């Protein structure tokens, strides 16, 4: 059992709420990212429960058209920008310095700034609901619908949306800079790039994507703002602008963004599978190259969101979209062969990781249909796309987030989550998820367009919509055991110890939770599984840790 005898956590000179509000400790900041993200996850979830309630049956029962447009626009905006992207950044914030043996991130104060811009940005987004209507032109906000003219987007909701997103985008970019400098410059001795944990690699590639792509959407948002408020002519055809220009600039960011929304979840899954199969990740280097390949290729496919505009060179984007399936497949096979001939323990983190594999498989496959351009002519802007995006983002990323949450909760809090309740959550979530989103394949094929508040009974979509609504509420129900588990375990879960899972990487070589600067001593690093090596006596004898002895430096913080 790999325990480390460390000095107890140093007491800080700030306490309570003030400590949290002013912290620059990556671990506290990471936890705040998680909390903030889950809050917006619930808000975004409530918004879409209203959508599903409305769509359960034909006829407008609960909301009016304009408000319905606000509901789904804000659902998507919140989920993308204030839930999934930040929560993955939050996990990265917590785990990366620990995994590379660093005491904190490279720029701790900028780290705190990055976090605090998020609740502010999210608040601005939501403020629209109170000032005459939130943004209602979809999370994509295509002009001219998002321009300031009658029957389009008059009112401040759209402007608040723009400003909120610029703020959140800036938070992301600063975070990316922080991660890159930390990863390049602060790894422990012996940890070469190809000995870094896979999670750190996914954070690296994600940060490159964020750094290069996010500023482009900032420029699109600013151009839209100028059109709306200063009589600009970027996108308004009435004054010489081009609506398709917006789409090109927007999707140049928003396609790489989908990899930002999943790569770190894939990294988390890549940490969990080896631990729970008791074997190393199969094909570590292939995995690294596949991840980098996805990042690079991700910049070349953006116009596959625009196949029906009549303004796109179709064969190129179709080819690149098909090609990006190859590195994704490489990863899928590497994951499966990590499990193959292993000795699997079906604990909750592994269950969610397996759910990730299965659901992401479906999401990747149904995406390939849209890569075939003529098929996309039938499927674009229908519920097929809603099915695809949720299979990859919910079935993929959210299941990955849940896997990571159950895996890292003990490290963050020192307590174990309840396994049975975790499994109950998994089963409910899995069933609810598939019940909600699988019928959307049929709905899309049958011709149900996206973003409509109501449909005619004559279209024959009633049963599938009702099914999807039941599934949606089942997902909501699955949040009950989740929250119960979190709050009860925080108070009275079993003590976790340093390394409850027999982990492979450095974060498990310190206490749970870790002390302020993470490590007193570090084991020698000779592979991508330093703790595994230590546990099985595969490090250089001189560097083994069990007996720390007197400190050679007179600099230990004594508390």
């Amino acid at each position, binding site marked *: 059992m790999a325990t480390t005898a460390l000095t107890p956590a140093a007491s800080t000179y700030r306490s309570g709420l003030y400590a949290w509000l002013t912290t620059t400790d990556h671990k506290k900041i990471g936890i705040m990212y998680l909390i903030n993200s889950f809050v917006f996850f619930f808000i975004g979830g409530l918004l879409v429960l209203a959508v599903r309630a409305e769509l359960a049956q034909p006829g407008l029962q609960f909301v009016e058209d304009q408000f319905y447009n606000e509901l789904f626009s804000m659902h998507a905006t919140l989920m993308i920008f204030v839930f999934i992207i930040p929560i993955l950044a939050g996990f990265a914030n917590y785990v990366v310095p620990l995994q590379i043996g660093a005491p904190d991130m*490279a720029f701790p104060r900028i780290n705190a700034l990055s976090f605090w811009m998020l609740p502010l940005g999210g608040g601005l987004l939501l403020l629209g609901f109170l000032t005459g209507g939130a943004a209602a032109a979809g999370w994509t906000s295509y002009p001219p619908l998002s321009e300031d003219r009658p029957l389009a987007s008059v009112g401040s909701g759209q402007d608040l949306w723009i400003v909120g997103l610029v703020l959140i985008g800036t938070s992301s970019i600063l975070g990316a800079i922080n991660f890159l400098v930390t990863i*390049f410059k602060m790894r422990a*001795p012996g940890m070469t790039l190809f000995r870094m944990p896979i999670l750190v690699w996914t954070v690296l590639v994600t940060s490159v994507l964020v750094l290069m792509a996010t*500023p482009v959407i900032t420029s699109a948002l600013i151009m839209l703002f*100028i059109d709306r408020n200063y009589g600009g*002519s970027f996108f308004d055809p009435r*004054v*010489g602008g*081009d609506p398709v220009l917006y789409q090109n600039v927007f999707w140049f960011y928003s396609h790489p963004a989908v990899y930002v929304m999943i790569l770190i979840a894939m990294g988390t899954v890549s940490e969990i599978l080896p631990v729970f199969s008791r074997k190393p990740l199969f094909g570590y280097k292939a995995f690294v190259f596949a991840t980098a390949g996805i990042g690079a290729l991700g910049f070349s496919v953006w116009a596959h969101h625009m196949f029906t505009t009549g303004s796109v060179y179709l064969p190129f984007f179709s080819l690149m979209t098909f090609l990006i399936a190859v590195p994704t497949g490489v990863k899928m096979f590497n994951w499966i062969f990590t499990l193959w001939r292993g000795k699997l323990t079906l604990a909750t983190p592994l269950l969610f990781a397996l759910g990730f594999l299965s659901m992401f498989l479906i999401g990747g496959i149904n995406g390939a249909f849209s890569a075939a351009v003529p098929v996309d002519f039938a499927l674009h802007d229908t519920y097929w796309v809603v099915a695809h995006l949720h299979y990859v983002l919910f079935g993929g990323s959210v299941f990955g987030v849940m896997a990571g949450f159950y895996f890292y909760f003990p490290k963050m809090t020192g307590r174990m989550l309840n396994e049975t309740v975790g499994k109950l959550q998994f089963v409910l979530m899995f069933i609810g998820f598939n019940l909600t989103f699988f019928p959307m394949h049929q709905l899309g094929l049958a011709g149900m367009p996206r973003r409509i508040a109501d449909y005619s009974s004559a279209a024959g979509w009633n049963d599938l919509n009702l099914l999807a609504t039941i599934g949606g509420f089942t997902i909501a129900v699955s949040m009950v055991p989740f929250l119960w588990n979190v709050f009860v375990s925080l108070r009275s879960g079993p003590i976790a110890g340093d390394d409850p899972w027999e982990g492979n990487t450095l974060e498990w070589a310190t206490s749970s939770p870790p002390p302020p600067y993470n490590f007193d001593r570090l084991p020698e690093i000779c592979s991508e599984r330093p703790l595994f090596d230590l546990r099985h006596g595969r490090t250089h004898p001189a560097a083994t840790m069990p007996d720390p002895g007197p400190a050679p430096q007179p600099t230990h913080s004594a508390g």
Partner: protein
Amino acid sequence: MASSSHALTPAEHSPVAGLAHDERGGISNPVLGMLLFITSEVMFFSGLFAAYFSVRASAPQWPPEEFSHTLQVLPLVGPATILLIASSFTCQFAVWAIRRDDRTAFLRNMAVTVALGVIFLVMQGLDYAQLGSEGLTLSSGTFGTTYYTLTGFHGAHVFGGVIMLSVVLYRGMAGQFSSRHHDAVEGASLYWHFVDVVWILLFSLLYLLPGK
């Protein structure tokens, strides 16, 4: 380090100092951070430039008839460009000066750089006023929108750079920099060169390249 005879420096009191740390050298964390930040700024301007090229390519005539002679290199924009380029030189002189511990030259060159930056902004402002009086505004179709957006955001970045350099100048006057510790100077100068390069590109595109 353990048996030093001097009073322990703050670094040595730190619990972090006890950890073996990366001695690989190379560029410092703040400088790497600034380079990455500049990369993100390059991408931001790329979005704006892409919009400009797209708008320009699909316009029937560029510049439009009414503005065919509005953008003039003299008397303001051309000289302002020369001053901005000169300020990059003085900025680099400042960096070289502090690298060899010549604080006087560093402060002098940095002050000149800040002054040149301010003068550039003033000249840009005067130019905007002139253009406005000739009828070119943000709402003057695609030509006006792209002109003011591109030069306006560049100007905002110059303004940010002037602030950054002023802080560096202030800290320099307070004696906070030496040949061994001047990351902020390196970082700020890299940013300033970036701002200058963007202007050279912009100036060439907007003023020097013929339209159709």
